[in-house]
């Protein structure tokens, strides 16, 4: 067995970050809400960067429940897509140039999404992670939750089902 030298770290990082930036940054609604993604290896954390327009009830004030729900749906879709693209990104099969020019891979479609509101969202940044509990050829199940100050005090959690893009309805 021949020994292959590991790739230089900046090559690895650049490839992964380019793919992620193209995937998430190419969706207008993700930019409208001001959602960005932190990456550690293949793990993604969605960041809902606070902005006044995300407020629902101005008297509290609290983040709009629809916004926190959308944040979880976005995090679920991007995580699901990221996981299924990972092998293609790593093997170099995915055309990064095409991706950067906005030719995105087909995204999973939401079949249903159930949101459980746990605490009011404070007027500050929120974070979210999605866990793909099952990913089949056609359907995927995802659990997602978002928190602010304390990781163990989620403000909202959700479970959703998604139709994978390579098998359209």
């Amino acid at each position, binding site marked *: 067995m021949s020994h292959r030298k590991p790739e230089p770290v900046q090559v690895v990082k650049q490839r992964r970050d380019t793919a992620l930036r193209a995937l998430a940054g190419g969706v207008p*609604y993700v930019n409208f809400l001001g959602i960005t993604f932190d990456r550690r290896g293949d793990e993604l954390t969605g960041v809902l960067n606070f902005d006044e*327009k995300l407020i629902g009830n101005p008297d509290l004030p609290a983040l709009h429940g629809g916004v926190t729900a959308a944040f979880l749906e976005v995090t679920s879709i991007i995580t699901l897509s990221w996981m299924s693209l990972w092998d293609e990104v790593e093997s170099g099969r995915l055309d990064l140039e095409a991706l950067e020019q906005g030719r*995105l891979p087909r995204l999973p479609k939401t079949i249903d999404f159930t949101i459980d509101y746990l605490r009011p969202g404070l007027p500050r940044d929120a974070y979210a992670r999605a866990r793909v509990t099952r990913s089949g050829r056609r359907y995927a199940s995802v659990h997602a939750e978002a928190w602010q100050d304390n990781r163990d005090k989620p403000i909202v959690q959700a479970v959703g089902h998604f139709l994978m893009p390579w098998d359209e309805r």
Partner: protein
Amino acid sequence: MSTDAETGIDPAVATELILRLPQARALGLKITGFGDGWAEIHMPFAAQLVGDPETGVIHGGAVSTLMDTCGGASVMAHPQVEGHTATISLRIDYLRAATPGQGITARAECHHVTRSVAFVRAVALDEDTERPVAMATGTFTVPQLRGDAPEGTA
């Protein structure tokens, strides 16, 4: 816009109220109908709401916000409910992709209230009103009940 026959509330006045919500303002939401325990809210199409640039279809998240806002409005429009409400849970079924370029209208009905909980069902439509884009069911908090209400399960 004319005053609603059931509630005597002008939908334009109700729209003013909803526009106090910064996110509702950002989405350009407009109340198009309002009555005892029901509300109808329109969200115009905007390029910034697109979830899939390949198809130009509005992101489900924007539909969630519309359904949540409309659901809450239907609770507050219920004659037995007093004060502000908050969403406990919301389930949305996405029946089909909204037609690109078209706005979406949500209609929500608060069909049952107990001392603590309001139950809502809602539907989202684009210009093809025969085929809904999404359906939702939700539960909302009831801060205070006007008069007597039968004891519910919650």
